[in-house]
């Protein structure tokens, strides 16, 4: 029994949310109350099997799982190695935390649409997990679009301005996905296969071909649009800001980061370091684009007055970190990029959780943080803890991903990218401490009395977020610190094995 589950774990990790989605959607229509427990149960199941996959990869090395026993190009084959095994458990894990956190909000905001909401929620998770484990370039396209469709629907549930910003996202997202599909077509013309290991094996003979180069460019541009790399990020701030808290807490941490993973997968396991950095002549430009993305994201974050919108620009900057790291062309940079994918997932999750709490208690502007250290100490303390990771203070996870990214930049002698990383750390410090200052000091301009008393903001115990929101938030904070403390182990056991041969 255990052995069977063990061997089927890659499929089960994905089937749980898939069947959960069906169950929540269909049975939930008759018993709406059950849709939430179904969602939680299937995410827990998915998480358990995802962790089992990690254990298997640690024990056995990379896995090939064949759906229904059909091998390779004909059947659907999953390829799980050190790279996606690391990311896999974070998807259901983050979704589970987000769902736990937003249970109350969902019951309140979507009381009439509980089954639909949970069904979409689980479909999105299914799509993301599929993107992570699939070994087929075309399946990947379908899964990207499943994810995208679920996220369009979820984001638009925010109502109001969300409709228009989601439509904007839909149009750009479709362009991105179509570019990717075109790239797949170009590869198919040349190689006659869509199965990633076969592609990887057949392509070296064809590296000179302009068709392949065109396909590669199309795929990359498509993915960059999907992940919101500056200056292709136009859809991101609006779509994430206008959406409801439960939707952003699910989507913002996961979708863009999994897309970054897909980019790394395509670059190194479909194409190869040799193709990316030797055959392609323009690859050194990308870290500079990433540097621009970082600086622009950070600067735009600086001028925002709305907290959630500020966070979306931080997401834009962080995408620049990962893209730059992956394109530096050395192991340190790639290690940093991969490690940052998981760190940034948890960081973004926690930040948007804080944003949700603040939106619940005020209008969500940075101004509304005023004096909240006194009334919401746990929320604010969590924010400070996450903020340390965003800035990159040891021993948080953010410090170590930045460490590797900076090492990569120095090794590649890419001073511009290094300067951009440092600049964004400093901007992050300003962003975090601007909020902390607001929360710690209150609005000083109206104050004339004795120091340290904020009577105009009558402190009440009830302002603190409900425990059901605080616990997931603090679990996230704990994970950020755990990622930092165990970064050495994680990198040694998993990420080192994810390094493609030929990268130095």
């Amino acid at each position, binding site marked *: 029994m255990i052995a069977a589950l063990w061997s089927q774990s890659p499929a089960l990790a994905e089937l749980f949310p898939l069947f959960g989605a069906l169950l929540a959607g269909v049975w939930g229509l008759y018993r709406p109350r059950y849709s939430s427990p179904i969602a939680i149960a299937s995410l827990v199941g998915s998480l358990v099997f995802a962790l089992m996959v990690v254990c298997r990869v640690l024990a056995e090395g990379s896995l090939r799982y064949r759906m229904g026993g059909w091998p390779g190009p004909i059947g659907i084959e999953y390829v799980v190695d050190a790279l996606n095994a690391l990311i896999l458990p974070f998807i259901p894990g983050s979704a589970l935390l987000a769902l736990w956190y937003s249970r109350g909000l969902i019951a309140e905001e979507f009381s009439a649409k509980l089954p639909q909401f949970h069904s979409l929620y689980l479909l999105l998770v299914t799509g993301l997990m599929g993107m992570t484990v699939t070994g087929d370039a075309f399946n990947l396209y379908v899964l990207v679009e499943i994810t995208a469709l679920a996220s369009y629907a979820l984001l638009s549930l925010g109502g109001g301005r969300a409709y228009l910003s989601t439509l904007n996202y839909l149009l750009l997202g479709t362009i991105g996905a179509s570019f990717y599909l075109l790239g797949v077509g170009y590869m198919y013309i040349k190689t006659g296969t869509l199965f990633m290991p076969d592609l990887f094996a057949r392509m070296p003979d064809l590296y000179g071909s302009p068709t392949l180069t065109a396909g590669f460019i199309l795929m990359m541009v498509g993915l960059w649009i999907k992940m919101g790399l500056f200056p292709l990020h136009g859809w991101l701030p609006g779509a994430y800001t206008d959406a409801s808290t439960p939707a952003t807490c699910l989507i913002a941490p996961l979708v863009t980061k999994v897309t970054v993973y897909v980019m790394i997968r395509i670059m190194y396991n479909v194409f190869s370091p040799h193709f990316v950095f030797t055959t392609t002549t323009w690859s050194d430009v990308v870290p500079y684009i990433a540097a621009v993305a970082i600086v622009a994201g950070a600067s735009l974050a600086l001028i925002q007055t709305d907290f959630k919108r500020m966070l979306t620009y931080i997401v834009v900057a962080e995408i620049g970190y990962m893209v730059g790291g992956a394109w530096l062309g050395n192991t340190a940079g790639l290690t940093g990029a991969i490690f940052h994918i998981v760190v940034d997932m948890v960081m973004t999750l926690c930040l948007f959780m804080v944003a949700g709490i603040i939106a619940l208690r005020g209008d969500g502007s940075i101004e509304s943080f005023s004096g909240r250290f006194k009334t919401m100490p746990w929320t604010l303390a969590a924010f400070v803890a996450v903020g340390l990771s965003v*800035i990159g203070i040891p021993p948080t996870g953010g410090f170590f991903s930045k460490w590797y990214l900076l090492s990569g930049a120095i090794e590649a002698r890419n001073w511009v990218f290094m300067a951009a990383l440092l600049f964004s750390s400093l901007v992050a410090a300003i962003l975090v401490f601007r909020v902390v200052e607001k929360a710690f000091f209150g609005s000083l301009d109206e104050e004339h009395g004795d120091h340290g008393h904020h009577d105009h903001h009558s402190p009440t115990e009830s302002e603190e977020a409900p425990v059901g929101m605080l616990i997931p938030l603090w679990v996230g904070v704990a994970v950020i610190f755990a990622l930092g403390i165990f970064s*050495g182990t994680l990198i040694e056991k998993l990420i080192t094995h994810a390094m493609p041969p030929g990268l130095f």
Partner: protein
Amino acid sequence: MVSLTPLLAMLSSLAAVPLIALSGKRPNLREAFTFAAGITKLLLVLSMLPVILAGETVTYTLWEILPGLAIRFRVDAMGILFALVASSLWIVTTIYSIGYMRGLKEHAQTRFFCFFALALSATLGVAFAGNLLTLYLFYEILSLSTYPLVTHHQDKEARDGGRKYLSYLLASSIGFALPALIASYLLAGTLEFTGTGFLGGTASPAVLTFLLLLFVFGFAKSGLMPLHGWLPGAMVAPTPVSALLHAVAVVKVGVFSVLRVFTDVFGLETLKTLFISGIKAATIVAVLASITILLSSLIALFQDNLKRRLAYSTIGQLSYIILGAALLHQTAVAGALSHIVMHAFGKITLFFCAGAIFVATGKKYISQMVGLGRAMPFTFAAFFLGSLSVIGLPPAGGLLSKFYLILGSLRGDEGLFMIVFLVSSLLNAAYFLPITFRAFFPGDKAVDEVSLAGIREAPLWCVVPPVVTGLLSIALFFFPETVFRLASLAVGAGGTP
């Protein structure tokens, strides 16, 4: 020797934080926890002293955080010297804090004591750090944990001071120290302190010089100009904070880190041969430190706010230590190390007195203190002892460390810098001695008896600590053996500097 003791010594005040936080409603219990933690910490540090004096080191590896790089403690003579100062003065400061905070009925005292304990843990972490990464880790924790202490008053002035504080410290540590750290790791493949340095010969002199400057400016807690602006700004903090953190813990962590860079990252021998276009790299640092010393002393001369004058004096004295290190001679480095101790005792006394005056009279400005000596004789006597030590006059400990600094500059054939020490000592005397003098002898500016009426010594909690530390800094003149033994052990000179 491998032992848990350094970890425990670091943790003892951290473990007290939740206890302090939970006993917030019972102040006496709360302060008892602080004392217990302080005494435990001191005893743990003292327990390692015999081993260190025997010339050994105590190490403990916590966990490997990056491949080949661990969070690691390594207690050597240099570390324990600093740890002894910080942990012993913490106890005295706690006594003083109780008097000060209760005397002024400050708000949020629980928060104050919590973060104070946290800051002390970070300080010991820096002192016992076994590699540059561990040092950086605790360095950053210290910057952040002292922010709520600096901004304790939560008013506009505190906000501005706190803003300055964090922006200087974080910008320098992230902008300069972190890249230098990573570059060193990439060059040398290690960041472990061994007492001899690991960067020697790993890169061209230009790169190494650049790294040296990055490090020196990266650890901006050392207050080297032009990155000194945060220290006067941080004077908005309650006086116990200024006393322990901004005369001892925080600023000394800065110079301690710089010293580590000189002795354990580069190594004195490497630096002696590190020239860039004919100029010794260390000389650049020495010149910067000299400029800082002279300028800050001049600025201090014109400050009327007592705490600001003390702050500028601190900036100058910190650069003595950097200058001592940059002279690259064993005697000078030993002098620099012992100056960490001597200056700590002297300066904390001065800050205690400033706070005691404020508690008793509410006066912050030196011009208001004329004649106060008669009403507050103990406080001003202690102030006098403290200023003796900082100026470097007998019979105070400061004389000895300055003596070795000057001796080192002569032995290292850097006689020019001796003049810096001498001139600045004169300036020190010029801005300190008049304060005491005019407090006791107001002269023809006859002090209105009425203005002194009702002014009495501050509460005992506030007066005893400065008297004790003042006397201790005199005692250090007569019994300096341990300090100098440790200092000379640290520079590898055996028994005597």
